[in-house]
C-alpha cells in the first residue's frame, strides 16, 4: 500500500525540482548556522548560491563518521538545543557514540516516513505491531513506534530481550506484524520451537526487518519458519533512523529511498568518485529536510547500488539494492575482498545448514598467510552417522567458497548452539589478525 501517493509516486521531473529546492535551502541553512559546514564549504570553494543544479551536489565535500565524532556531542546541530525535542545516539562500538537531535518537525517527518515504510510492507490500521527493536537511545524502537501509531495500528512496545516472553506475547496478543533484526527473527523462531510453540501457528504475516546486513537465503528461511513475508527496511540513526528506505511488498526487489527527503549517491569508497546506476559502492546520503541535524553527503559505509528502473508498485523513488555489507565489515583475506554475507549465502545454500555461523580470520605465524575458518553448526537435518557424509558436506562448502569467492576456507562443523546468539545484531566475524 502507498501511504503518500503525492510524494511516493511523484513524476521524476517534479521530484528532482523539489530536491533541488530543498537542497539549496539546506546548504544555505548549514552554511549560516554550523561552523563546521561553513569551513568545509569555504575550503571547497562552494557558496550556497553556487548550487544551481542537482549535479552541483558533487562539489560538496563528504561528511564522515569521524567528523561526527569530532563534533561530539552537539557540534553539528543546526538549531539551538532549545528547539531540539529528542536526542538519539548510535551504538558506537568504540569510544563515544554519535549523537543526533530532532526538532518537533523532524519527529513529524520521521513518523511520516516510518508510516510510509510500514505501509509499504503492507501494514494497515488493522494490524497489531509487535515492535521488538530496542527502545532507548537506539532509533529502532521509537522510530517504528511513532510510524505504526501514525498508521493507526495497534503497537506493542516490546523492545528487545527476554525472548520467551516475546514468544508468549506474540502468541497471546495476536500480533500480525513483527519488527526486529533478521537474526533476532530467526532466534525467536528457535526459542518458540524450544518452547513447543510452532512459529507458523502465530498470526504473524509480515516481518519488517533491518538494522543489519542479511541475505536472500536468510529471508527465505525466515519466511518459511514463520510463514510470513519478510520485508527489508533500511536506515541509520545519523540520517534519521529506520525509514530511509524500504522494500515494497509488491516487488520485494530493492528498497525505495524516500528521495523527497534524502538524496542518495553511490561512490567508489577509495576514490570518492560518483558511480553510475547499477554499480556497487558506498552509499552516500544528503538529508534535505531535517532541521536539527542535517547531513551533507554523509558516507554511510554501507555497500549497495542504485536501481532507477520503474517499479511494479508505482513508486517513482529510486531503489537501493539490499545492503551487502559495510565498508568496515569487508574482510580482506589474502588480498581478496570478502563480505560475511557472501559466505552466508553460500553456506545457507547447503541443505539443512542453519544460519548460525562464525568466521574466524587469522594469520598463520609460519607462512604469514591469512586463514579463514568458517564454523557451521550441525543441525539434525544435516547430521549423518557416517563420517564420510559430514566430511563431504564440509568439503563441498569449502569448494563453493573457493569457486565463488576465490578464497580458501576451512569449514569446521561444530555442535549446535555453540555459536553465540545475540539478541540484537549478530556477531559473525572474529578477526584475530587485529589482535596481534
Amino acid at each position, binding site marked *: 500500500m502507498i501511504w503518500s501517493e503525492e510524494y511516493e509516486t511523484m513524476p521524476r521531473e517534479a521530484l528532482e525540482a523539489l530536491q533541488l529546492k530543498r537542497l539549496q535551502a539546506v546548504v544555505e541553512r548549514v552554511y549560516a548556522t554550523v561552523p563546521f559546514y561553513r569551513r568545509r564549504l569555504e575550503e571547497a570553494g562552494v557558496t550556497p548560491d553556487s548550487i544551481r543544479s542537482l549535479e552541483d551536489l558533487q562539489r560538496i565535500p563528504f561528511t564522515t563518521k569521524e567528523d561526527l565524532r569530532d563534533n561530539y556531542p552537539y557540534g553539528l546541530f543546526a538549531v539551538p538545543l532549545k528547539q531540539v525535542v529528542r536526542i538519539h545516539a548510535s551504538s558506537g562500538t568504540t569510544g563515544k557514540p554519535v549523537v543526533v537531535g530532532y526538532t518537533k518537525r523532524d519527529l513529524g517527518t520521521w513518523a511520516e516516513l516510518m508510516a510510509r515504510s510500514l505501509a509499504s510492507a503492507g501494514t494497515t490500521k488493522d494490524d497489531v505491531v509487535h515492535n521488538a527493536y530496542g527502545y532507548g537511545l537506539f532509533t529502532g524502537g521509537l522510530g517504528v513506534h511513532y510510524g505504526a501509531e501514525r498508521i493507526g495500528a495497534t503497537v506493542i512496545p516490546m523492545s528487545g530481550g527476554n525472548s520467551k516472553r516475546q514468544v508468549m506475547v506474540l502468541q497471546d496478543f495476536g500480533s500480525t506484524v513483527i519488527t526486529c533484526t533478521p537474526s533476532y527473527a530467526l532466534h525467536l523462531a528457535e526459542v518458540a520451537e524450544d518452547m513447543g510453540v510452532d512459529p507458523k501457528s502465530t498470526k504473524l504475516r509480515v516481518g519488517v526487518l533491518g538494522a543489519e546486513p542479511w541475505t536472500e537465503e536468510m529471508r527465505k528461511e525466515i519466511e518459511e519458519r514463520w510463514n510470513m513475508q519478510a520485508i527489508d527496511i533500511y536506515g541509520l540513526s545519523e540520517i534519521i533512523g529506520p525509514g530511509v528506505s524500504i522494500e515494497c511488498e509488491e516487488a520485494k526487489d530493492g528498497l525505495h529511498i524516500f528521495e523527497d527527503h534524502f538524496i542518495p549517491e553511490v561512490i567508489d569508497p577509495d576514490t570518492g568518485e560518483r558511480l553510475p546506476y547499477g554499480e556497487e559502492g558506498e552509499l552516500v546520503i544528503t538529508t534535505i529536510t531535517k532541521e536539527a541535524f542535517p547531513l551533507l553527503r554523509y558516507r554511510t559505509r554501507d555497500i549497495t547500488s542504485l536501481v532507477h528502473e520503474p517499479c511494479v508498485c508505482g513508486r517513482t523513488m529510486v531503489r537501493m539494492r539490499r545492503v551487502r555489507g559495510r565498508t568496515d565489515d569487508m574482510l580482506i583475506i589474502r588480498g581478496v575482498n570478502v563480505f560475511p554475507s557472501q559466505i552466508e549465502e553460500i553456506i545457507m545454500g547447503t541443505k539443512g545448514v542453519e544460519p548460525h555461523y562464525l568466521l574466524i580470520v587469522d594469520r598463520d605465524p609460519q607462512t604469514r598467510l591469512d586463514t579463514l575458518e568458517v564454523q557451521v553448526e*550441525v*543441525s*539434525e537435518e544435516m*547430521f*549423518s*552417522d*557416517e*563420517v564420510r557424509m*559430514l*566430511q563431504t558436506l*564440509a568439503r563441498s562448502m569449502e569448494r563453493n567458497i573457493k569457486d565463488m569467492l576465490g578464497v580458501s576456507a576451512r569449514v*569446521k*562443523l*561444530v*555442535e*549446535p*548452539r*555453540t555459536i553465540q546468539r545475540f539478541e540484537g545484531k549478530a556477531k559473525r566475524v572474529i578477526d584475530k589478525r587485529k589482535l596481534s
Partner: protein
Amino acid sequence: MKVEQISVFLENKAGRLAEVASVLGSAGINIRALSLADTTDFGILRLIVNDREGAKKVLKEAGFTVGITQVIAVEVEDKPGGLAKILKLLAGEGINVEYMYAFVERSSGNAVLIFKFEDLDEAIDILNSHGVRVIPGERVYSL
C-alpha cells in the same frame, strides 16, 4: 531384525564424551555398546542403549545433535576367525560395510557385531541364508 542406534555429533572437545555418558547415566539409561568415529575436526559417537527415545530426548535437551540410525547386530562365537568369516562372506556377495564395531555379550561370552550397510534388507537376507545369526533389536537392547 534391525537395531536402532543412537548417533551423536561431538566436536572434539575434552569432556563431551564424558558428558554424553553422564547425561545418559543420570537419566538411568544403560549403554550396551558404543563406538567413536573420530576425525581431526569432529567425532560421531554411536551408541546402542536400552531406551532409544529416552536417550534421544535427554541428549537433545542437553544440546547435542542426535540421530537414530538402523543397523544390524550379528552374533558370532568369540573365537579366532569368526569376524573374518562374515566379512569374507559379505565381500563375496558384493555387500559394502559402511562401518562396524563389536562388543562381547556377558552371559554367553559370544561376540556381537554391529554393522551398517547401505542396503540393510539385502544384507539381512544374505546373512540369514548363510546361517549367520542376526539378532533382533529387542534382544540387543536388553543384553
